[in-house]
Structure formats: C-alpha cells, structure tokens
C-alpha cells in the first residue's frame, strides 16, 4: 500500500483523514482506489477519470505532470501528495 497525503481542503471528502493508504502500481491506480472508497472525492477531483487541473500530484517529490502523468509508477515506499493551491496569508 502507498500512502497518499490529503490536503486540508479535501479532507471533508475523506472523513477527515489526512493520509490514506491506497493500492496500485501507478498514480491512476491509487486515485481509482481512493475514488471508489470516497465517492465525494471522485466527484470533486477525479470526475470521468481525469484529475482536476487545480490539483497537483507529487510522487516522491516530483510533480507527476513532469513525469508520466497519472501513469507515473509508484511503489509501496512512495509518498504521494495531493496538493491544490492555498490562498491564505491572513
């Protein structure tokens, strides 16, 4: 299982959990796994099998857009971070 970190703004869709374990060999597998368990998360960031553009995904510290996108391979030791922008400076 690979750990996926969930940003605070998406935790309402993951029962408040900040990190989730997910199964799969690619970032897409992990998202599919999470989306099937958390339908609200699918609706929000992964509708129709494509990741919303405002969410960055980092696998092992690299933005997957600069690698193989959702087909980027991950291992059980990988850390995957979902990260939308935060505006607050207040």
């Amino acid at each position: 299982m690979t750990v996926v970190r969930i940003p605070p703004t998406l935790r309402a869709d993951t029962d408040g959990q900040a990190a989730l374990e997910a199964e799969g060999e690619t970032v897409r597998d992990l998202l599919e796994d999470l989306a099937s368990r958390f339908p609200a998360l699918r609706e929000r960031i992964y509708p129709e099998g494509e990741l919303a553009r405002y969410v960055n995904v980092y696998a092992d510290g690299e933005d997957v857009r600069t690698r193989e996108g959702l087909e980027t391979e991950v291992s059980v030791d990988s850390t995957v971070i979902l990260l939308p922008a935060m505006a607050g400076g207040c």
Partner: protein
Amino acid sequence: MATPVGLREVEPEQTRERLNEPDAPLLLDVRTDRERNTSYIPGSVHLPMAEVESRLRDVAPDPSRPIITYCATGRRSLDILPTLDALGYENGASMAGGIVAWQARGYPTESPSALDDEKLARYSRHLLIPEVGIEGQQRLLETSILLIGAGGLGSPAALYLAAAGVGRIGIVDDDRVDASNLQRQVLHSTAELGESKAESARSSIEELNPDVDVVTYEERLTSENVDHILGEGWELVVDGADNFPTRYLLNDASVWHEIPVVHGSIYRFEGQATVFKPYDGPCYRCLFPQPPPPELAPSCAEGGVLGVLPGVIGSLQANEAIKLALGIGEPLIGRLLLFDALTTTFSEVMVRRDPDCPVCGEHPTITEYIDYADFCGVPGS
C-alpha cells in the same frame, strides 16, 4: 625608498591584476574592526588577525585557493602567513605596503562608514557572521522589500526584515485592524483596533528600528495600481496575500517586472513557502496553473488558522528574502516547502518551470493583465 619585496609578498599592482583574473585569489583583510570601518579594498573579506585561526575555514572553505592578506602597511599581513600555513593554506601571500600602498597608487577603496557606532551595536550579531559582515549589513540597509499584506504572514516577515535592518519596507494593505486579527498578526496590538493596518505596521516597524524607511500603500493591489507600485524600486516582494486573484495578479506583474517573489500561504495547521524568481525558476502559474474552485479555497476567516502557523511560514519568508538580498545560501527557488504544524514535519517537492506557462513560458499567451476575479471564479470587488 621602497622596501624590498620578500618572497611571500606581492605588490599592490600585481594584487590588483590577480584580482581581475578568473581564478582570483581571496583577498583577506586582517585588520581590526575599527580599521576596517574606515575603508577597505572592494571584494576583500574581513577577518581580524586574532580570529584567523578559529574562523579562516568559514571564510575560505577551499584551502587550495590562493589567499592574499593585507593590513595597513603589510607587516601584520606578513606575520599571519605562518598561521595560514599551519592551517593548511599554503598558497598565502601578503600584499606589500598594505592598504596604505594601495591607496597611494590611487586604487579604489570603499568605506563602510554608513555603519555608525549605533548601527555597529544594533547589528553586531550580523556583523559577526562571515556571510553577512559589514558589507552584507550595508547591503541590507540599502535593500527595498515590498510586502503584500500586513496580516498573518506579513506580520512576522515585516518585523524580522525590519529588525534585520532592511532599509526600505513597503506595505500594501487596505484593511483595518480587527479583534480577530490579534491572535496571530503580531504587527498590530489591541490599542490599534480599527486603525489602518498599513499605518499600524508603520508604527510597529518604526518603534522597532528607526533605520527603516516605511512606505505604505493603503490600497488593494489591482491591475490598475500594480505597475505603479512595483515600479517604485522594490527588489523583492514578500507575498502574504489572502486571496487568489491578488496572488495571480502579483505573479503576472512580478514576472513582467522581473522581481522575485517570496511566496507563503497558510491554512489551519499547514503552510507552504517557495521563491519565484522570474525566468530563473518557475512562477506561480507554473506551480498552480489554475486556482481551485471557491468552495475549495476557504480563507482563514472561513476555515481558521493556528495563530503560530503564520509565525513559522512568515519567518521562513523573511529568511528567504534576506538570503536573496545578500546573495547567500540556497533559496527556495524551484522547491516548495510544506510544513505541517500538527505533526511538526517539513517536506519538500520540486517545482519546475513549465515551458507552456502562459506567462513565463516559451510562447506566452497572457501578456497583459486579465480579469483576475473572473479567472479565479470569485465575484469582483
């Protein structure tokens, strides 16, 4: 009648030539603080004789790089050479005749006289650090840094930059001090409730350090005023804005004005910081091409924030700004630092320039200000 030059001495002429070569030697000023404070040879590093043994490694990490020492007349700088040898610096030589001979030839010197006794005392802990020193402190005193927002992030950033002696600090904020701000916005105090934040920031900064020239802009950053504001000589911007339209506007403007932005953002227990240096590293749009929809972009007013969190992130921003101003260390260019206050962990992800970035990419498609409220899906103000 000139004294004969010994084997381990170099004449000022030769010294000057060698300093202009690509693999120039390190020019080491071994005089006292007081002497250094009168005038020095540009580009030289100051290390008083008494400290050579303990601190030479700090200022000259590479022992194979040749060193030319100098003092007032060339005597002490010659005497120190055996110490250099003993420390493993065998390419040491002394400049014959010292700075007196240098000046007699009409060669340039600089004077750090801007640091009077009061400043020497105030910044003494900076002056002791080889990477800052008198020249670095003078550089800070000549630096102009603009803060977008005098709120959570802007508060610690402004205070530390002011304390550090950044000579000119600009504050852009159109808000007034509210009771709910005081849990974290340490620039403001109970007595300032209802006052303009920009003015409250000015009084806090001036109380802390009268060396700082504070410039206030009691307005919101807009497409109409941004060129005027950024055009007023700011070398760096510290972004502590509280909304996406301002952040995207600031990004586009700073890329076009080629001004680096030290970015920070916070929400509840989590914060982010990075540095956007136009064309050297990614910009905000390379990192986040699109803002999240408004329902996923709650402000601190809606979602809350741990009071100390902006203290951590805003201080990191001040740290980056000072490093950039001094040209030292490794700034957070191309790296996004993530901080989680609940678990007390820092993590880092890489941010790369996007060749397709609409603003700083190879073929920009956004070349003038857009409707940022519309772009971010929020009602315009």
